[in-house]
């Protein structure tokens, strides 16, 4: 279902096997002894005899790490056994395990970059496993020369590196009804992740095929079981769209579209087609299911907005947030992330009294266009009940709205693009709960 234990990209296997020869037999033994050969094959796949030499089962925590030889070198690193970070599957009991989403553990992360194995997932028909040697990106339609590209062709084209967030259009949708008392930053807002993406700007592809100037739209199509399709305006393609090949320094993982995916900075995640196999240029939208039945916004008057692309400015406090707690009154740091699909975050304000007063938070590091920025705010808690909120402003001057303001305009049937101010209720016992729900 997820990518972590699937076959590695072919490009990595030579390095892996080199290390494997010297070190891996202990790993064979440990894995097999721990879980049996069948488990071993199922986990790492029969086509890949290479294996990490260290598994979670190998970890021993000595009483004094200065008096015991440490653990071996390993091919792939592990997290500390004291760090428990994982995605949350929306509905683990859903009969269609391949269709659904997993939330990124926002409350456990700091900074802005999301580790690739913790990037949120939203798949409509599962994770496609693709052999890059068999994969082609075909570009056709209103072009002078229809072309097909291999992964290695794209590697040879000029590339760029950018740090962008990707956010599911449905992220935070629990905010419209309000969610549950025990909802968390992860379960409400965890469908946003930030990565360094390296790949080929779409404008180079456009030049290479000789786009007909009359073309205004392009269909992007994935090579998954949903053969996912979305229409994208050519204007966006020429501005900043990327065919991404790398994520956070490694080839994109299968769950994020290996071997290549579309990145549309700041726009809803569904459009950023994973496992990209085809681009067809035309002069009208293609009206796919995902821009008619889904990803349209139903208004109180019965009409529906279509092609609502940008993810607007938003912020959320990730620490402290529900599931965590404060041990008592005193000095704490309020931490969170803010982002805007229309540009750069200019300002984040924090309120601890339910929005009566606001103070500017400090932005850590560079605030980049269409990326997340981390904010910190030192706070002295007096031990009384408090309502923690954050409010983002981007460089267009747009200020993150309240939930009430969104509901008033959009009504109860609106599903996507929720970006209202989140409030966390801090109780005198130091626990937190979803502030949308009455205490």
């Amino acid at each position, binding site marked *: 279902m997820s990518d972590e234990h699937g076959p590695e990209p072919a490009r990595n296997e030579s390095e892996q096997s080199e290390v494997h020869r010297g070190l891996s037999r202990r790993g064979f033994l440990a894995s097999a002894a721990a879980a049996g050969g069948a488990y071993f094959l199922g986990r790492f796949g029969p086509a890949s*005899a290479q294996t990490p030499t260290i598994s979670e089962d190998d970890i021993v925590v000595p009483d004094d790490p200065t008096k015991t030889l440490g653990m071996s070198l390993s091919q792939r690193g592990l997290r500390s056994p004291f760090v428990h970070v994982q995605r949350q599957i929306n509905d683990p009991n859903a009969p269609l395990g391949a269709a659904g989403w997993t939330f990124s553990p926002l409350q456990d992360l700091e900074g802005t970059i999301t580790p690739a194995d913790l990037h949120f997932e939203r798949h409509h028909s599962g994770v496609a496993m693709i052999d890059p040697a068999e994969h082609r990106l075909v570009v056709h339609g209103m072009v002078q020369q229809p072309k*097909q590209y*291999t992964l290695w062709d794209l590697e*040879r084209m000029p590339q760029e590196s950018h740090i962008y967030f990707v956010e599911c259009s449905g992220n935070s949708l629990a905010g419209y009804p309000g969610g549950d008392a025990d909802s968390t930053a992860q379960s409400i807002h965890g469908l946003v992740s930030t990565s360094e993406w390296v790949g080929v700007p779409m404008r180079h592809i456009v030049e290479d095929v000789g786009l007909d100037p009359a073309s205004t739209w392009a269909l992007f199509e994935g090579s998954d079981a949903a053969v996912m399709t979305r229409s994208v305006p050519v204007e966006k393609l020429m501005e900043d769209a990327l065919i991404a090949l790398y994520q956070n320094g490694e080839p994109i993982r299968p769950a994020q579209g290996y071997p290549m995916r579309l990145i549309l900075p700041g726009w809803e995640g569904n459009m950023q087609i994973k496992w990209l196999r085809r681009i067809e240029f035309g002069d009208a939208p293609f*009206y796919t299911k995902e821009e008619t039945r889904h990803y349209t916004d*139903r208004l109180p008057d019965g009409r529906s907005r279509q092609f*609502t692309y940008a993810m607007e400015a938003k912020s959320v406090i990730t620490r402290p947030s529900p599931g965590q707690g404060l041990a008592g009154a005193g000095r704490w740091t309020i931490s969170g992330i803010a982002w805007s699909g229309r540009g750069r975050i200019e300002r984040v304000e924090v309120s601890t009294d339910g929005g009566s007063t606001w103070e500017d938070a400090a932005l850590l590091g560079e605030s980049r266009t269409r990326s997340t920025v981390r904010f910190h705010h030192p706070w002295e808690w007096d031990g009384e009940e408090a309502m923690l909120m954050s409010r983002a402003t981007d460089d267009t001057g747009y200020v993150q709205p309240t939930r009430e303001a969104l509901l008033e305009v959009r009504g109860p049937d609106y599903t996507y693009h929720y970006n209202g101010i989140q409030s966390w209720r801090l109780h005198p016992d130091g626990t937190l709960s979803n502030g949308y729900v009455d205490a």
Partner: protein
Amino acid sequence: MTSRRGPLADTGSQLVRWLMLGGLALFALALVACDGDDDGDGTATATQATASPTPTEDGEDPEGTPAGPGPEAFTTPAPGEGPRSGGEIGEPASEDVIAALDIDVVPGGAGLPDGSGTVAAGSDVYATNCARCHGATGTEGGIGPRLVGEEGPWEPGKAITIGSYWPYAETVYDYIRRAMPFDAPGSLSDDEVYAVVAWLLAEEGIIEDDVELNAETLPQVRMPNRESFFACWPEECRPDVP
């Protein structure tokens, strides 16, 4: 010596795999087999264990480099073992290549294939391929969403069904052909897709029971909710909250 080691190592690793399938009792033997061709020199066997395409025995030079395009090729290894060339980037896509992938069907009917389907035939297609997820009559839903049983145009309080919400019949055809059935995507024939679209639209009262859908008749279907959509590009509808 060096060039022979790779294939031997491969045999060894195959052996390991089979023995592991045999269970833990044989596992120790596998380790012996693996040890047997190591000889304390792990590096020489490394290249053989790489991904496809597997180099032939003769294709390896003394350095253990996989057979490649030759000395004129770019010397820094390109990622993976895929095709490399110093010439044109990409190649022209033939009509056949495009036709094999170009399955989209758009409003107006462009892309609709030959063939046809009736409502009666669609009833069988639905029962066989769709009912297990969407319910016996398509009004129930289940593993998959409810599909039919609500009149359009949609308004607050109404269920989202094909008839109440989808603006184009062409999209129904496109989607079913590309992505359904969920557990057997792309398994329906073009005729079966026409038929099941006809059955769904007839269940919604959008077409009569005796209508046969094909590339000519399907684009004539007018969906009840079509006028309810309005585009927020290039002129945007948001920000909608000050």
